């Protein structure tokens, strides 16, 4: 950990470290005003969380003694840029009996890794594939 790692004193970021917050199109929190909404210069996209913010929250969670929460934030940071339909498709594939063989999950892992740079998520899906194979989850359920 570098000495720039965020800690609990930096939390809430919006209050203590607003200069660190930046939306997808570079907007600052101070730019997200009612006037800006009314003139149409703020979109839903400007109100989304960023991968950077999730990694910052992961640092804070780790400093607060919550390593598994931090890991989840780091995995989720990889999903920020993944389109909704891809997320829902892979989620569906992870449900019992949806994938009929390990290769389908391995392909999804490949898509996450190569298409979206989601390395941790990809490893997570590969791990699921191994467990599902062992526990017989590749059987049709409906």
């Amino acid at each position: 950990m570098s000495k720039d790692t965020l800690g609990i004193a930096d939390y809430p970021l919006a209050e203590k470290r607003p200069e660190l917050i930046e939306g997808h199109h570079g907007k600052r929190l101070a730019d997200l005003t009612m006037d800006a909404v009314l003139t149409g210069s703020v979109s839903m996209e400007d109100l989304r969380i960023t991968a950077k913010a999730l990694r910052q929250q992961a640092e804070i969670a780790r400093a607060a003694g919550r390593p598994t929460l931090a890991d989840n934030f780091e995995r989720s940071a990889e999903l920020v840029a993944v389109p909704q339909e891809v997320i829902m498709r892979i989620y569906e594939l992870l449900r019992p009996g949806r994938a009929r063989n390990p290769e389908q999950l391995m392909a999804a892992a490949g898509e996450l890794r190569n298409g979206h740079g989601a390395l941790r998520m990809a490893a997570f899906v590969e791990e699921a594939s191994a467990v599902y194979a062992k526990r017989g989850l590749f059987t049709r359920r409906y």
Partner: protein
Amino acid sequence: MTTPRALANRWKRFADWDERPLRLDKFAVEDARNGFAAFSSPNDPKPSIVIADGRVAKLDGVAAADFDMIDAFIARYHIDPALAPEAMAIPSSDYARMLVDMTVPRTTLTRLAHGLTPAKLAEVVTELSALEIAFAYSKMRARRTPGNQAHVTNAKDDPLQLAADAATAVAFGFDEIETTMRVSRNAWANALACCVGSSVGRMGTLFQCSSEEAEELRIGMAGFTSYAETVSVYGTEKTFIDGDDTPWSKAFLASAYASRGIKMRCTSGAGSELLMGFHEAKSLLYLEARCLCLQRGMGVQGTQNGGIDGAPLTCTLPGGMRELMAENLIAVWLDLECASGNDARATESEIRVGAKILPYLIAGSDLICSGFGSILKYDNSFNASLLNAEEMEDYLVLQRDFEADGGLTPVSETKVLELRKRAVEALGAVFDELGLMTPTEAMKDSVVAASGSDETESFTPRDAALISQAIQDKNITIVDVVKALATRGFQQEAENLLALVKLRVSGDYLQTSAVVRNDRVLSAVNDPNDYAGPGTGYRVGPERREQISNIRDVLDQHEVLRSERVHEAAEAARIRYRPLGEAKVAADPTDVVIGISPAFGIKLFRTLAGHALSDVLRALVGGIEGAGSAKARIIRMHHTADTSFLGLSAARLAGSGIGIGIQAKGTAIIHHKDRLPHNNLELFSNAPITRLEHYRRLGENAAAYARGELPEPVVVPYRGQANSRHHAQVALIYAIETGLTSEGAPPETVAIEFRETAS
């Protein structure tokens, strides 16, 4: 020939008990082999761990090769292999003591929990009594400030009522509100309506719309919702699969929610595996410990546990309610935010409801109920909650009784009405502005006043379906709603919604136990529970105490006097009291004295039963003089207001030696001059149920005693009414009486003149 005696075959008390709501509850025999055991089952594994090459090789007696997917996930993601040997080596009885030891910091225990297996966690909390669990829970819960969550739904999926009820829930102080639908395709209409309603009054109430997983995430992405909690996990593999998920799919979903900036907690709770048929003959607590380790492993910030849908089943078992508390304790020991159940109506007995909620109310919880039915029972689309709109004021009073912060604040009638109006106007304007559907004034008016959907003339479920579809077709997002509100003059509501959705950008409310209070995110990070004994941790401060105390219809002396003044004029028209100077002892053996109290007919004019004092005196005098054997003399006492001494003083002045003492509130006594002060002849101690006929008969009996007879004492029938109905008033009234007493002041004869016929 003798007829055989008909012997009763049943003590009738059992028939009385049959009529109690309690008997609607059914109870189950403990039967571990069939999964009916709360705390322990012969099939529960003994706690153990083996670490090899930095990985878990054996977990609670199961070798890695034999792990089911739950074991595998817990071993991989929950257990910290570096810490586990040290943590597991500490005896369970030591942990049990540490949990209730205020000198052992919470963080010491939460750190060690990273190395504890499900069987170990279950074994430890099993050693604690219900009281110890509640205490440990208070110490171990993550966020210092307690909070609460509400259900906001209705039987018609009527958006206008949802908006009004959401605004109402916000006003009462709920930190989170949760909706769901009768008709699943109405999700978007429900979401938009609650979202607008929750922006009325103050900013920051988090909102969720419980629906199908993919749709819930889409609604969240459109900005309408800010959290989710219906991501269920289960303690056996087969149940998990029947729930149509795996630990990996649910953990993936958890990351997906965080990636969209949506706060999320999982749901689990005792009894779900039993209900779903795959319990592996293990105890409810052990299975729940597995669920909770799984959740910490997934990296979710919190859990909704404590029975939830399985709470009614759990409460059929011996120790069931204690088990629900124990599993909540494991949740907070694992450092998870805990929305601590208390939602499903686990009993028909109001006593069991009150008993169930009390430990949580006094211990505090991140969200005491998950949620509290803020709407009437029949409007609750999740099914009735433990506490509902019907019982809301009971809960507010419990807060006041125990000076405990249950997360709610009493709100005045005028304030609620104002907010409900504002909410339906705001939603009507948004619907109109966005071209969804325009409610009539009559629809809005019916919703503002309605206690529940039976009383509304508003949108139908079909209307809601059309609105819901239109919201999707038009791709409406929270940005459009904010614009519509601002355009139509609902500036504050627009600002409130924008401020809430802006919180997403920084992700601050994704941290453990986050809520929004006074425009700020408050979580276990910046508001950690730091309990370390009396004077530490969360305390109800003076300002909060004032809020909690401020329930409606509270009596004070000013209120009592104001109410008495209303009757003063009417009494003046009926009776006149004329003081005739100091009273003396009479020699006439037919003389019976009525000793009235200092404020009688001067400051106080009615008994607690509501009888005018003129009518009471008329009845007493009529009773004494009715048989023609005695004469009544009225004497006002100035030295005492106590019934016994009023009566005894009257008796000692009476020529017959018989006196009646009566206070303005109606408490009356017959006394004899030679008896001890508290050893009277007859007493009417229960003024609120004493009727005029009783006073008349009391007078008749006084005359009978004066004749030397022994009459049948007058018994005022009592049907078990609680003194709570009157005692505050009694004390206030009595203080008015005692305020007029003057030590040693002589008694005064009073001539009374009845000015008209009885009222």
